């Protein structure tokens, strides 16, 4: 597992916000042993950030709560590098064609959410999800490394949607238009804060992730987004982007919208 250097000031900031927990508290939250949790990190099922000076690893509280959801674990496996997911295992979650997934999100998600939340709220959930679906397909068009398409799952009880792809990730795409980008974390920050797109020219495009961010900050609950070894968390009514270099790099992009 690669060692990750954490800026301690940053760590203090995210610890203050209750975003990360030390391993003891994390194990207690899940009701499992410390050694099991350590193995989950080593297997790439859950991410940590490392405080190298103190030799400690910290777990993200949001990930610990999500991992109770089976589809979360499946999605994490889906984006493991050097992995060839067994498509039979993913038959309920794998969408090779964008149009099929669009139908799933706009029609089925609405049917599932109707009566639970307002129509306006549903429209924002779908709007954020569809920007992420669009990114998964259009930004990998013609350059899928292995499996073309996206993973999608919705959990109505836990109010979350997961969208993941085994594409090339943000860094490779954005490097086409900004050659100075050298790390996943820089690409991630740029993607969520600047109008930039690897597709098209002339200041056109490049709104999708900023729109998803606005949906979360103004209306929804949380967005967790990972590309390569860079992880981001956005929370409702909070304009900060909480970004970290994490222990387990993924292939492509992985997003959880909580609503």
């Amino acid at each position, binding site marked *: 597992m690669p060692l990750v250097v954490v800026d301690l000031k940053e760590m203090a900031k995210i610890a203050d916000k209750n975003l990360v927990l030390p391993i003891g508290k994390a194990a207690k939250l899940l009701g499992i042993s410390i050694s099991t949790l350590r193995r989950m990190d080593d297997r790439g099922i859950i991410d940590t950030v490392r405080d190298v000076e103190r030799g400690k690893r910290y777990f993200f509280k949001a990930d610990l709560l999500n991992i109770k959801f089976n589809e979360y674990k499946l999605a994490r496996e889906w984006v493991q590098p050097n992995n060839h997911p067994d498509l039979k295992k993913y038959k309920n979650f794998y969408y090779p064609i964008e149009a099929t997934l669009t139908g799933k999100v*706009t029609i089925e998600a609405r049917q599932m959410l109707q009566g639970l939340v307002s129509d306006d709220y549903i429209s924002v959930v779908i709007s954020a999800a569809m*920007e992420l679906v669009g990114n998964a397909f*259009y930004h990998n068009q013609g350059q899928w490394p292995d499996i073309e398409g996206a993973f999608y799952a919705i959990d109505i009880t836990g109010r979350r949607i997961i969208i993941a792809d085994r594409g090339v990730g943000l860094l490779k795409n954005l490097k086409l238009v900004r050659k100075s980008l050298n790390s996943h974390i820089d690409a991630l920050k740029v993607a969520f804060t600047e109008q930039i797109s690897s597709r098209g020219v002339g200041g056109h495009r490049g709104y999708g992730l900023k*729109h998803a961010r606005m*949906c979360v900050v*103004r209306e929804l609950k949380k967005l967790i987004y990972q590309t390569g070894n860079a992880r981001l968390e956005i929370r409702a009514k909070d304009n900060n982007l909480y970004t970290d270099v994490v222990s387990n790099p993924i292939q492509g992009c992985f997003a959880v919208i909580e609503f």
Partner: protein
Amino acid sequence: MIIELKKFGEDLHGRPSGKDAYDSIIARLNDLPKTEHIIIDFGGVNSFSTSWLDEVLTPLQKTYGNRLILRNVTNLSAKMSLDTLKEVGGKNFRIEY
């Protein structure tokens, strides 16, 4: 001329679909008198995304400027998509209240 977006679908997302809609709209505007407004009616659509609206509205605004008017912008995802276009891309559209 009034363009009803609900005729393009109940959920309007994605750039390819937006571009198709734009091509269809622009074909109908060829013979439009030079003083006539183009009213884009948002009523009856369930959800929007920024990408779809950008493909439709940005080139229309470029061609028709202030003659382009958005009507019935009541859906929350529509309002937020227009806010994204404004805050990120500096695009201001004339909205009828």
